[in-house]
Each structure stands twice: as C-alpha cells, then as structure tokens.
C-alpha cells in the first residue's frame, strides 16, 4: 500500500497557486510529516487529497493510492481516513455506534459487528463504553475513539490534520504513541500536518516543508 502525490497543485479562483507543485511518495506504514507556515494551504492540500475541495479551487496533478489514480473519485469512494484536532464524534450516536458507523458494510451479522466494535474499544482502553454519550468522554478518550473509528473503516491511507494540538501536554505523548503504533501495525501510509516539531519526531518519518506559492 502506498499514497502517491504527483505534481499536485491547487489554484484558487483567481488563478494563484497556493503552494509549489508537490510530488510525494508515502509507503505503507510510514508517517510523512508536512510542515509549513500558517495559511500556506496545508488544510486545503488535505481537502484535495481526501476529495473535499471547496468549489472555486482548481486542482492539477494526481492523487494515487496503491498505484491507482483516485483524483476523480468522490471522497466516500477513496478510502482515505481523516483525523482532525477535534475528535468530531457524531453527537447523536453513542460511542460504540460512532465506531460502527465506519465499519465496512462487508462485515455482516449484528453480533459480529458488535464484537468488532467492542474489540476496538478495548484496544483503545474504552471497554464497556459502547452506550456512552460521546459528550461525556474525556478529551483523550474522545481522541482514541475517533482514531479507532477511522481505523475500523480500513482506510487505504490516513490524513492527520494537527491531530494532537488540542490535547493536554501530558496526554499528548500517550496519544502519539497510541496513534503511531496502530498506524504502523496496520501498515497504512499516513500523511500528517502539524506545527509541533515533537509530532514530527514522534512520527519518526520524513519531514516535508510546504513552500509558499511562486508568482504565476
């Protein structure tokens, strides 16, 4: 498995490129960190990779997953997982149902689906919290639940958008370890955007600097 960006470039409605064309190979199990000044378009880059680009932006270059070009596919067909600084658990579903939301439909049978979710919950140290209201979880619990929800969907690649920036400093280390262990054990190619050099160190992978645009 791998995530490949080939000469990816985003232009805004008036034709200015946000950053210089980006070519990048993320092999399975590796975490590539993207750093760059605020406003350079890191989040927009993730939108483009994940298939969420807002109207008005123009995209050139390609996004490849395992050698397949997914640039034209809608977000839900790309199988590219997303993690934000906020856990963004669905507020109307219980913790367990949040995880079940991401479970592939291929896994059949109520008991089996439930078991898969329960297993993921105990992996995340959330055993017994299936029926809980996500709003009642602590920040760390929420972040772990969100990561498990993303991983249960069996993504072919993962995008982490400043995933630890909102956590308390003492929690941050634990969460980094937890996240990167799971990512690496599942061999998912992962791209991370961050401001925090410690994130990059913990990711233990290549670091790329996103450069601002040159005049067109």
């Amino acid at each position: 498995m791998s995530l490949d960006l080939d000469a990816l470039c985003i232009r805004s409605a008036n034709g200015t490129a946000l950053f210089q064309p980006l070519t990048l190979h993320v092999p399975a199990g590796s975490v590539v960190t993207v750093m760059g000044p605020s406003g350079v378009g890191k989040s927009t880059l993730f939108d483009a990779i994940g298939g969420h680009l807002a109207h008005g932006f123009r995209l050139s270059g390609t996004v490849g997953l395992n050698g397949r070009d997914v640039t034209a596919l809608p977000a839900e067909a790309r199988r590219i997982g997303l993690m934000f600084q906020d856990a963004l658990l669905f507020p109307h579903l219980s913790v367990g149902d949040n995880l079940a939301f991401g479970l592939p439909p291929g896994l059949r049978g109520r008991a089996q689906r439930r078991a898969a979710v329960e297993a993921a919950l105990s992996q995340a140290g959330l055993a017994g919290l299936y029926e809980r209201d996500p709003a009642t979880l602590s920040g760390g619990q929420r972040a772990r639940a969100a990561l498990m929800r993303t991983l249960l969907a069996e993504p072919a690649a993962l995008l982490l958008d400043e995933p630890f920036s909102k956590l308390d400093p003492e929690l941050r280390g634990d969460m980094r370890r937890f996240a990167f262990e799971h990512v690496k054990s599942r061999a998912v190619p992962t791209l991370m955007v961050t401001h925090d050099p410690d994130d990059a160190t913990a990711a233990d992978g290549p670091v790329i600097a996103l450069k601002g645009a040159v005049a067109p």
Partner: protein
Amino acid sequence: MTEDGRLLRAIVLAVVGLGLIAPIVVGLWHTGHAAFGILPALGQNAASLEAWRDLTALPGFGTSLRLTLITGIGSTLLSLLLAAGFCAAVHARMKPSAGAQLLTPFLAIPHAAMAVGLAFVLAPSGWIARMLAPLAGWDRPPDIATVNDGWGLALMIGLMIKEVPFLLLVILSALSQIPLARHVAAGRALGYGRGIVWIKIIMPQVWPLIRLPVWVVLAYALSVVDMAIILGPSNPPTLAVAVTRWFSDPDPTMILPASAGAILQALIVGLSVALLMAAETVGKTLGRWWIRRGGRGLSAEPGLWAASAAVMALMATGVLAMLSLVVWSLAWRWSFPQILPESWSLKPWTGAQGGWMRALINTLLLAGATVGLSLALAIAWLEGEDLARRNRAPWAEALIYLPLLIPQIGFLYGLNVGFLHIGLSGGIWAVVWAQALFVFPYVMIALSDPWRALDPRMIRAAAALGAGPGRRLWAVKLPVLLRPILTAAAIGVAVSVAQYLPTLFMGAGRVATLTTEAVTLSSGSDRRVTGVYATLQAGLPFAAYLAAVIIPAIVHRNRRNLSGAMT
C-alpha cells in the same frame, strides 16, 4: 457526485422558479394589467391611466397613503430602536436561550389573534380602562379613541408588540456571531460609555446581519391587512385595508382602481426599502465622521433604560392581550366595568365545536402540507449547496426574500386569476401553494444558519469513513440538526397558521381556517367565540414550538450536546 449535486440543484431551482417565483410574477402581471385598465371580464380592453386617476380621486386616498407611511415606517423604526436599546441594556444579563424562550410566545401568536386581544385590552371599555375605572370613577367607558384611532397609534402599538420580539431575536442571533463581550470591554477600556460602545462599535457590525429581516418587517408593516382591520383607523383605513375593501366592493369596476392601489402598495414598499438603503449610506458617512471625532461624552444610558421600559410595557400589554383571549373564551357575561367576568361558561367552546373542529383540522392539514413541502425544498436546497460545496449567491438569497418583500395584496388578486386559468382555485391545494410562498422563505431562513453552522469537518469525517451523500444526509446531518429542523418547522407552522389573505383569496372562501374564522368573527359581536378561535390560533404555533423543544429532548435524551440541556 458532482452530477448528483447538479441534478438536485437544477430540480430545486426549477421548483423555486416555477413554484414560488412564477406565481408572484404572474400575480403582478395580472394585477398590473387591471391597474392599467385591462379587464376583459368587464369589457375593458384598452390600456389607460383611468384606474390611477380614479384611485387618487377616491375619498380619503391621501390620508390612507399618509397613514400607511406613518404606521409602517414609524412602527419599524421605533421597533428597531427599542429592540437595539433593550439588547444593549440587558444583553449582558440575559442568556440567549432564556431570551429566545421568553420571546417564543410573542413570535408564535398570529397577528390577527394578537390584534383581537389588544383591541379588547386597549379599548375605552377594555381591560386597562376597567382597571382604572374605580380610581377614575368611571361608570361608563370614557369617549376616547384608544383603538381605531385616527393617528394609527393602536395599530403601531400592535405592530410593535409583534415586531420588537422578532427584531430582538434577530439581533440576539446576530450578536452571537460577533465577539461581543470582548468588543464591549475593549470599547469601555478606551473610555467610551456602554451605550456609546453599542452605537459606535456593536450596531455597525450587527446591521449588515439584520438588514434583510428589517426590510421584511418594514414591508410587512406597510402592507399588513388583518391587524390593521382590527386595530387601525377605519375612516379612512390604511392603504392596504382600503385596497382589500375596494377589491370586494359591490361595484365590480372598483377592481381597476383597487389593482392600481395594489401596485402602488408594492411601489411604496420598494421605495421605502430604497429609502432605508439611502439612509444607510448617509448614516455610514455621518457615522464615520462622528466616530473619528472620538467623542466619549454623550451618555446614552437614560435612552437605554427608556427603551427597556418601553419594551417591558409592550410585552406586558402583549401578555394581557393573550390572556384576555383565554378569559373571554371562558366568559359568559363580562360587562364594563367588571375586571373579571360576572359569569363563566364553557359554551363558547362546546357550542362552537362543530365549527372550530373543522377549522382546526383544515389549519392542521394546511400547516402540515405547507411545512412538509417547504422543509423538503429547504433541505434539498441546502444539500444541493453542500454537494456543490458552494456558498449561496446573492441572487439566490434575494430569491428567498422576494415573497416576503412584495406585499401580498400586490399580487394575490392577479395570482387568483392565474390559478383560475389553470383550474386550481378554490381547492385546498391552491391554498397550500399560496401559503407555501410565504412559509418556505421563513423555513429556509430559519434553517440556513444552523445548517451552515454544522462543522463541515464532521461531514468530511463521515465521507472519509465511506458514507456517500445519502448516508451523510440521513444518518448524520438530519439527526444532528433535528432541533433546528423542528424549530424551522415550528416557525413554518406559525407562518402557515397566520396566513389570512392567501387563504381567503385562493380558497375561494371554502377553506375555513382558524385565522379566516377569527378575522371573520372579529367583525361579529361575540368576543367569546372570537376568543375561542384566537386562543386556538395562538395555541397551535405555540404547541409546535413546544414540540420543537420537547421532541429533541426526548430523542436525544442521552446526548448532552443535542438535547438542548446545554444551549
């Protein structure tokens, strides 16, 4: 997916264009024809300005015009001033949710019901006079015009009781979009008084957010019919009432000047809005000059307290009016100067049962159908915007507001002619259609902000988990937005229940609703039966608002962020 979005948006645009905009254009077209003398049914086939000459020559035309301008513009500006002053004075001490709950009954009660209650409260033989009677030693009511007065003051009070709460809600919602507390603190730290901070810093930020709702209020106040019939001057009445009367004059040729009056009514609204825009430009220039001078001295504090006192007095009067409806519906004999009825009876409820049951069922059917259709269209529109990942174009926003800015009387006569051409008049579907013209914009406006406030990253997370557009809509957006959707529906119910002219014109008088019955009965002598209808008319939207609070609380009882316990 983009294809999906395009198809959906094309369908929505077609429905809005043909369903909402075309009827208005057709209505204005037919009314306009009659205004310029073309009415083949009466053998009038040549265009002329006769109708306009007749219109200006009608007795009291000038007074009607003046009354319309004074009551419409006056009540709007006063309401705006009072609402802004009240917000400035008490905002810091009021939780927004508490404010909204306090205002709900005032928003829910239809204009007609409020007017019926107010007419009794304010009348020389009314509740206030009865409370004063022992002190003043009146054994018969004083001969003072406190309702239907020639100045239109009672009408203005009635309009303000409905408009101030609406503007308060609009301003409160605008305030939640700006960093209010920090700006006020910053301003006061620079040595400006609280009132001055509101005038110089807060209101300039709020105004662009409330501009359109203020236009809607202005358009409504200039062209209101039901409330003006009940509270306004009658000899002559305001232009909108006069036009409605001329449309139903025994002499059918009066349709011509009536149509001219209807077009004039639309022009007045257009010109008043233009005037407001011009005033905004002038105000901006003067305001900048004033702000740059940096004066801090002028204290607005007494003004703020006066505004708050006036708002409280208006609210108290409104509460009395609502209460009086219930009391009257349970009274048997209640004569001057008794403060409470001499005898009570349930007869007004049981006796009128056959009638109010049918009106209630019709009202429920109409509300259900119009709100259902409007909600479906609004959700389709918003989902279309989401799928296209676009913001709303200004012309689309204007399209939504159009039905609220054009006076109903301006196009309803013509629309009825149009409906007759396609054989649709006189049935419940014609009424549903006509009501939806006014229900949809309110539902759309009410739903747009919460819909956009939904964190787009949550929807992206759902997509990243493999959920297609359908699942994102049904399994994430709609359940999460249950509360705002039900609130929008409740607003839709309130608007549908309150519709008078569209129900009257399009229903050919056959579709009796609580509102048409209440207005008809208010021209009768039995205040008790009117009280029954007005109570029901006010109760229905209130029940809808209550449902919009209770249902999410039950459905999301174990979901702290959605049950409403937090907000």
